[in-house]
């Protein structure tokens, strides 16, 4: 089975040949995986090199903790990739973006209005939580099509705040 894993700009083609053999970008590697349930860790040996890894899925991507570093990995399998290539789109879709509250908190300010054009990085909303004022910013350019909260609202984690299109 062949997979495509991306970390930022870098893509790896990884093929699982057996429980102990993989190809990474065509290069064969011996692996030995031991799952340590109780401490939610993987002990992975790759050609004798030892890695102690914590991994979990977050919003579709895989989050990997390794030597104190954190990597977000996007994964496609062969079929998914073929489908997307056939459809002519290699990049992920960029359509509607719903800004949700990353944590419970108090809405302090909404410096944008419905219909506003915003650029990537613009502050969309200020949320107070854990004694800090946190600026929630636009992940890309777009238009604010809907605002679903107001200043002084207490919002829950994952609650929809506004929509960007």
């Amino acid at each position, binding site marked *: 089975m062949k997979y495509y894993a991306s970390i930022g700009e870098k893509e790896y083609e990884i093929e699982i040949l057996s429980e102990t053999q993989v190809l990474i970008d065509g290069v064969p590697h011996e692996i030995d995986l031991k799952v340590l349930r109780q*401490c939610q860790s*993987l002990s992975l040996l790759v050609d004798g090199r030892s890695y102690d890894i914590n991994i979990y899925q977050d919003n579709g991507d*895989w989050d*990997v903790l390794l030597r*104190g570093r954190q990597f977000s990995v996007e994964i496609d399998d062969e079929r998914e990739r073929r489908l997307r290539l056939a459809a002519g789109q290699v990049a992920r879709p960029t359509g509607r973006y719903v800004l949700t509250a*990353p944590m419970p908190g108090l809405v302090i300010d909404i410096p944008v209005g419905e219909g506003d054009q915003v650029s990537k990085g613009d502050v969309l909303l200020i949320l107070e939580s854990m004694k800090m004022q946190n600026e*929630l910013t636009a992940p890309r350019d777009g238009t604010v099509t809907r605002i679903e909260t107001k200043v002084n609202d207490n919002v829950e984690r994952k609650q929809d705040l506004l929509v960007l299109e």
Partner: protein
Amino acid sequence: MFKKILIANRGEIAVRVIRSCRELDIPTAAVYSDADRHSLHVRYADEAYYLGPSKASDSYLRGDKIIEIALECGADAIHPGYGFLAERADFSQACQESGITFIGPKPSAIAAMGDKQVARNTVSEAGVPVVLGTEGQGDLTDEELLKIAPEIGFPLLIKPSAGGGGKGMREVRNLEEMPGLLTASRREAEASFGDGNIYLEKLIQGARHIEIQILADQHGNVIHLGERECSIQRRHQKLLEEAPSPFIGENQELREAMGAVAVQAARAVDYLNAGTIEFLVDEDRNYYFLEMNTRLQVEHPVTEAVTGIDIIKEQIRIAAGQPLRLKQEDIVLKGWAMECRINAEDPFKGFMPSTGTITQSLLPAGPGIRVDSGVYSGFEISPYYDALIAKLIVHEETRNETITRMKRALEEYRVIGVRTNIPFHLALLEDPEFLAGDFDTQFIKDDVPPFSGGQDNQSLPEVAALAAVLAAHQKTQSSAVLIQGGRQATSNWKWLGRWERTTK
């Protein structure tokens, strides 16, 4: 000695105080809000009493209720920790009136130093140099502050009169952006300290934040325990502290001069118990009094490491009327210590706080490692209190060895379930300027994180990709059996799905 000490705080610092009390064989009483019944300070204290709803203003800031609980449970002393009621003269006063020892300075000293403006006036009169600002001009309105600002000159800082820890502080680059920042600062100050008063202070460019730890007993003895380097800050929040300061280094003359001035500042307000004099030190080694924190500091462990002194035990002994066991000449700094504040925040997403359940907390261990933490595996982080989940302190012979030990410890430390700033610290510890000790309070830029996310080891991203693929492979295989795997492979992989459910 005290019959029982009530700890009017939560989180790591409450646990820290409980530990020292237990070692002194003094029973402890914890107090807790709705959000904290499961917290470590409740579990580790000898007694625990319910205080009120989760919001700090309804619980940990309710001095009246805390004193009531202390009286009811027979506590004859209260340790306030840091934050919350630690620098409230009225609370110290109320304790005194109720016949309870407040483990900290007298109300008069808190008032004199706690109001940052009065403090600057006081020490200035005692001959200690201060940075230009609006001290001694009372609580000014926004209008008045906007008028004075150009006289001080930009850039300048807006600072809350009460409290510390960088909360409510704002840097102002010009007059235009100042009104909005004044509003934001007052709001944050009000939320954090229950006091919206603010003042202005000139921002010294290229300055270092270096502070001196003070101990003062009831018998007129005042000593200092050397300095801490606290210039590594993001938005005026300290992130990493060390002792000694690489800027002072072998300059014993400067260390002693600053120590002497700090003692002088403490004496100026007839100071009692542990306190810290914060200085700004410019590139020419001129130092200016910044403020005095009339309480224990978050970063006190680095001083404990290099001096071998348990500062909280000293605080308790001082409060009980015992004379200091050590004289100034007994204080010898040994080795080098460093503290990384581990916050529940995502360094890859603008240091946004991260709430949720810590499904696993695996602590680093071995020589020269200390962890002060208020969380554990299964702990739920609430949005009500600050993001500090642990302090990682290491100690070794030299600064370089301390840094490599810290990196080792950060790599061992695992927090799963919430994001932490561990990757930020690791990157910082690889920064050439940091390694050279060449940094000021502006070193950590707000918009551009100075770290690569761990590109030092070429193979790590590849291994991360492989691990993610192995995990994803299990997901896509409906039978959860690897291509050539058998029964064992099935059970080996099954956990991933299970754990996913747990962390969702």
